[in-house]
């Protein structure tokens, strides 16, 4: 029975190829759009998830200046209030696992005939721990390097590529702002940060070296900001309170007065970013689904025309013994075949489109099996949903009326 119906559906669809194709086209475009949009959305989400993973976990960023009086003032007149000693005190808190003060600046690097301008960050060895950052080669600088402010450096991958090419940088000497620094290690690849910066385009040096020898600051011993890692996700609220309290105490902030620093929960910010991307990705999919809906309506439209055109045929079938469900199934099957065939091509179109977008614009795309399966199921459901009404209309025809139809 189903076999006969399939071949009848095939014949019926073949009888008006152009129309069948145009009907399928709606489905193809709909499914293709959904797949493409999901691929782009998931690509964005993948990037965000990657950056979050590369950021380090359970992180706070502590900035100089208050957040309540017109944003955070960084180096723009307001005195930096955070010190390395603050960082070391915070590190003693039981809810805090590690703290890394950051004294960043831009500097020109030279090796041989190559030079490269990049961000140089003065920090402590704990920085690697806070950021969950491995070394690809060499060793980190040590606390004694910090104590004696030696000229040693850890290079990010982008810096290595631009200064050294294929050469092994470990043990070599580079010049930062004319002064020689020995490369002791190379940082592992991190990729993009949440705000799209290349995290590998960086150099780490001891914070003391940065403060005293490289940048020199009018406020001795201060840092722009620091990163603190809580011992666990659960400990984050406790850590935030403890850090705030400690710093107020250390900075002698009076009861009721504003903080002269800002503690931000980076992990929460990252999660918000991830959530935003997820919502955006969903919205892309939802917007694309509208074209699926339009495709479905196209199927319904054509099936209604088809039922009307074939009224007499339906009458003949009913006269010689077709039951309602036989007719229903026949037309439903046709709608489902059209939508599934359209969907198959649409999946191809969507994947092809995603690859094209990736090649042309470099936008990250991720095609998952689940998005393909989902598009497929939705298409089948669209076929059933929009095919049902016309099929039922056919199944409910009165034999005598249908046979009289001209």
């Amino acid at each position, binding site marked *: 029975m189903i076999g006969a119906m399939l071949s009848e559906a095939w014949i019926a669809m073949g009888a008006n190829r152009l129309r069948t194709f145009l009907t399928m086209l709606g489905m193809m475009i709909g499914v293709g759009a959904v797949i493409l949009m999901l691929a782009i959305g998931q690509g964005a989400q993948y990037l965000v998830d990657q950056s979050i993973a590369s950021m380090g976990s359970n992180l706070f960023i502590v900035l100089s200046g208050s957040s309540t009086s017109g944003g955070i003032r960084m180096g723009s007149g307001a005195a930096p209030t955070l010190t390395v000693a603050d960082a070391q005190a915070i590190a003693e808190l039981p809810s805090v696992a590690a703290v890394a003060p950051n004294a960043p600046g831009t500097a020109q690097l030279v090796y041989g005939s190559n030079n490269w301008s990049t961000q140089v960050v003065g920090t402590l060895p704990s920085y690697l721990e806070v950021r969950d950052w491995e070394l690809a080669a060499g060793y980190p600088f040590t606390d004694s390097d910090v104590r004696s402010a030696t000229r040693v450096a850890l290079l990010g991958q982008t810096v290595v590529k631009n200064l050294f090419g294929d050469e092994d940088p470990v043990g070599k000497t580079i010049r930062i702002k004319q002064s020689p620094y020995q490369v002791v290690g190379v940082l592992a690849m991190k990729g993009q940060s949440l705000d799209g910066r290349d995290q590998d385009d960086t150099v780490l040096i001891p914070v003391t070296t940065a403060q005293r020898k490289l940048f020199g600051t009018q406020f001795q011993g201060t840092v722009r900001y620091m990163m603190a890692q809580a011992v666990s996700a659960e400990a984050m609220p406790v850590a935030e309170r403890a850090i705030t309290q400690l710093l107020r105490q250390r900075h002698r902030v009076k009861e009721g007065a504003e903080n002269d620093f800002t503690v931000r929960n980076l992990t929460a910010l990252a999660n918000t970013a991830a959530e935003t991307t997820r919502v955006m990705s969903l919205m892309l999919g939802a917007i694309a689904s509208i074209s699926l809906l339009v495709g479905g309506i196209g199927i319904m439209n054509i099936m209604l025309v088809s039922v009307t055109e074939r009224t007499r*045929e339906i009458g003949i079938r009913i*006269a010689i*013994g077709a*039951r*309602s469900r036989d007719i229903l199934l026949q037309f439903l099957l046709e709608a489902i075949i059209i939508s599934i065939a359209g969907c198959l091509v649409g999946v191809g179109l969507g994947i092809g489109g995603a690859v094209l977008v990736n090649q042309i614009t470099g936008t990250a795309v991720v095609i998952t099996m689940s998005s393909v399966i989902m598009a497929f199921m939705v298409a089948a459901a669209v076929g059933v949903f929009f095919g049902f009404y016309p099929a039922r209309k056919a199944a409910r025809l*009165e*034999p005598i009326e249908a*046979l009289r139809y001209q």
Partner: protein
Amino acid sequence: MEGEPIIRISGLGKDYLTAAGSVPALQDISLAIYPGEFVAIMGPSGSGKSTFMNLLGCLDVPSGGAYSLNGTDVRTLDRDQLAQLRNAVIGFVFQGFNLLPRANLIDNVALPLVYAGVGKADRVRRAQEMLDKVGLGKYGASRPNQISGGQQQRVAIARALINRPRLILADEPTGNLDTRTSQEIMSLFTALNRDEGITVILVTHEADIASYASRLVRFIDGHLAHDGAVDHEMHGSVGAASSPRKGDGTSVRGEDAAPTAASPRNPR
């Protein structure tokens, strides 16, 4: 009279609802038709012949009266049960052939078997047999529009026969055919009636077509105007007899009464 009638009708009526109100197309028809009969239905245009056939074929529902087909009161059956009854008991032959234009002849002939739940291999085999029987065995892969009208009607007959019906209902089956082809088709009906005992009821407005039958029913203005054995000299006596009683003694089976397609009594 042998056994139960295949068709028993009493007080059957059909009103059509139109914009101008209710139009009585058939009124108070009562008759019985027995297995193996060959009945011709005649009457002027608009006298209710097609309406009657549609009721017999369970394609339309009567406005009143009782009808039992093959021992079943059709009023008790729902739509799908009626479909199955038609599929199992009736073979339809229409004036306009009513073949599926896109399907080939094998598929056209096999269609009733699809709805009877017969498997594909069996369907094709039996459809081929039927096409052979009506002399179109070679054309199985053709489409209806590739063969002549007479051939199409043969295909329709093959389709009507394929599920071994007890009853064939044919509404002006020769209406669109020339005389010679009409005779061929009528010979086919006669053979089916004579050799296989299939009950044949056919509508015609041509006396020479009706003369193939053994019993003649005549409608006038929705009334049963005549019901009796076919009078082979009836050309002059149209509508003379008027016995709207049940088929009393008019059921002729076989023998001399059956006007087998022997003599050339067609004046055309």
